[in-house]
């Protein structure tokens, strides 16, 4: 996988990704250079800090929105010291797949971090557990009827994990996870229909409440 990164932790991250067999095509320090490199390299994924020079506000997020619009095939993983729900919804408004929003701390768990990046590059989502838990605090009539286990499953779904991933995380069988998911779809009144990914719909409807 080829990655363009625009983060403060450039050197370390380059080494980390190289260790895991990924190629960092370019490592830059600001949003303008990031866009130029994405245009030049057409990478599989981008990792960008939200705050970048010159104004240190939300340049990275704006660059991410631009990349999502111009290069829908490039996965964008946004990286920040903070989780802001407003940023989450802005990111998700730019398209449901191929985006991620993680706290910088998550690089500490190399395996999960690289897995999240790979998921984003493959068109999936990777939301920080903080985002999910923040959203889970929101009362929602559909959500209120979910059991604790179902909330956990939905949370992991929102993070972007597969059934197998959820099963591993909760130490359940995949069959049990599937049952929980079916129950969630029922409670959130998501009818099965061809072409619609109910999994994404469930998460989106749920995250959309904050947008």
């Amino acid at each position, binding site marked *: 996988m080829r990655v363009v990164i625009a983060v403060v932790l450039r050197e370390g991250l380059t080494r980390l990704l190289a260790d895991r067999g990924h190629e960092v095509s370019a490592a830059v320090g600001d949003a303008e250079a990031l866009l130029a490199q994405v245009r030049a390299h057409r990478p599989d994924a981008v990792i960008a800090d939200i*705050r970048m020079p010159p104004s240190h506000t939300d340049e990275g997020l704006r660059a991410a929105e631009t990349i999502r619009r111009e290069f829908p095939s490039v996965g964008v993983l946004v990286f920040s010291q903070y989780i802001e729900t407003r940023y989450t919804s802005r990111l998700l408004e730019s398209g449901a797949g191929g985006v991620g929003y993680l706290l910088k701390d998550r690089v500490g768990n*190399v395996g999960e971090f690289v897995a999240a990046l790979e998921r984003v590059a493959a068109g999936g989502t990777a939301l920080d557990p903080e985002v999910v838990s923040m959203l889970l605090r929101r009362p929602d009539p559909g959500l209120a009827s979910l059991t604790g286990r179902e909330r956990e499953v939905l949370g992991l779904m929102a993070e972007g994990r597969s059934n197998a991933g959820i099963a591993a995380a909760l130490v359940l069988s995949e069959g049990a996870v599937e049952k929980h998911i079916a129950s969630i779809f029922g409670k959130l009144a998501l009818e099965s229909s061809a072409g619609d990914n109910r999994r994404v719909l469930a998460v989106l409807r749920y995250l959309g409440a904050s947008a």
Partner: protein
Amino acid sequence: MDGIRRVVSGVVRAPFTRRAWRELLYCTAGAIAGVAGFFLVLFTLAPALFISASVLGTVVGLLIIVAVLIMARRLGALHRLLLRRCIGYRVTAPAPFQRGEGVLGRLDRRLRDRDGWRAVGYAELKLPVAIIQGWAVVAVGMGLADISYPLVWLLFRHRPAGTRLGPLIAVTPVPDIQVAIDTLPGTLLAVVLGAASVLAGVWLARAIVIADRRLARALLGPSRVSELERTRAIAVEDAAAALRRVERDLHDGAQVRLAAVAMNVGMAQDKTGDAAVRELLDAAQAGLSEALADLRRIARGIHPPVLDTGLADALESLAASSPIPATVRADVARRPSPAIETIGYFCVAELLANAIKHSSANRIEINIDTYKPDVLRLRVGDDGRGGADPSRGTGLAGLAQRVSTVDGSMSVSSPAGGPTSVTVELPIRMTGRGA
């Protein structure tokens, strides 16, 4: 004896100093400008006040008053210029006028222009001062004329004997004192009178200039209140900027370093095969996570980063984490200054926390708008049980106090049984209102 001699010689020599002539120059210009300014202001302000008191003329009257205030500020500038140019006395100009927003806002700001009204006061109080200044100049002028009489007599009164000429009249600035002179030795009396008149004029000029300086400094300089308002605004904005800097330094410094350490520890965890080392690294990683979470919480308390993209975004993020459904409606046409945004944010955060803790509400509504000119209005309402009382408990009272440090206001409506609505109004930016 020596002391008296020095004083007398000082008094007598005064007319021969540069300072005296500069003061006389100032008195001449100041008297003309002062009398003209007095009538200009009086003849526009008086009818304007009269007109604005009537029902139909209110608008016209108010507009004329605004014109008078603008004119008075200009006149004040002219007087400051005269003081500086003629006698080298500097009066600091008051802060420039801050225009309001919208027609009413602009009118309101103008009518409350404290420095403008002070300039009007100067223009009106200047009349007696200007008259005395003019009189001092006249006294010196007349005195000089009197002193020239012996010369005049010798030059123009050299007539054959028996020619009858009217007497020369020695004038003094006191209208009743005039002396008719019809002999050459008599002109010496005129010289004495003239010298006295010049001396009196010079010293009168000095005294009135000192009085005028005081008046100008009190009314044409920055007022104590606007000065305090201005410096307080600077202090508040500085404090907000300092907090932002601290947050930014944390963000770009300690937080980045810790994240880098976390990354290295992560890579080490990944590579080690030794279970004991792994355990230690796991503990290190957990500690780093906690440290980063602590830093995040501290930084958020100092300056929530999402505020950088605007108050509406920040409040939406805040509302999104509320366990009671909270909606944000924002209509902010003009972005408040950073300090006001920060204060507004923490006000809403606290009101929201109060509502969550005490109201047992089902819904919370957060409204922010700038419908009133120059005012940022924040309202947090809930449909809970009410009974919030600013006089009991420190939360609301402390909030009111904090709001008042920027000339904001807070009103609470919370009857027992609800609903509760707390409205906070903040100036959109910190400036002296009168400035």
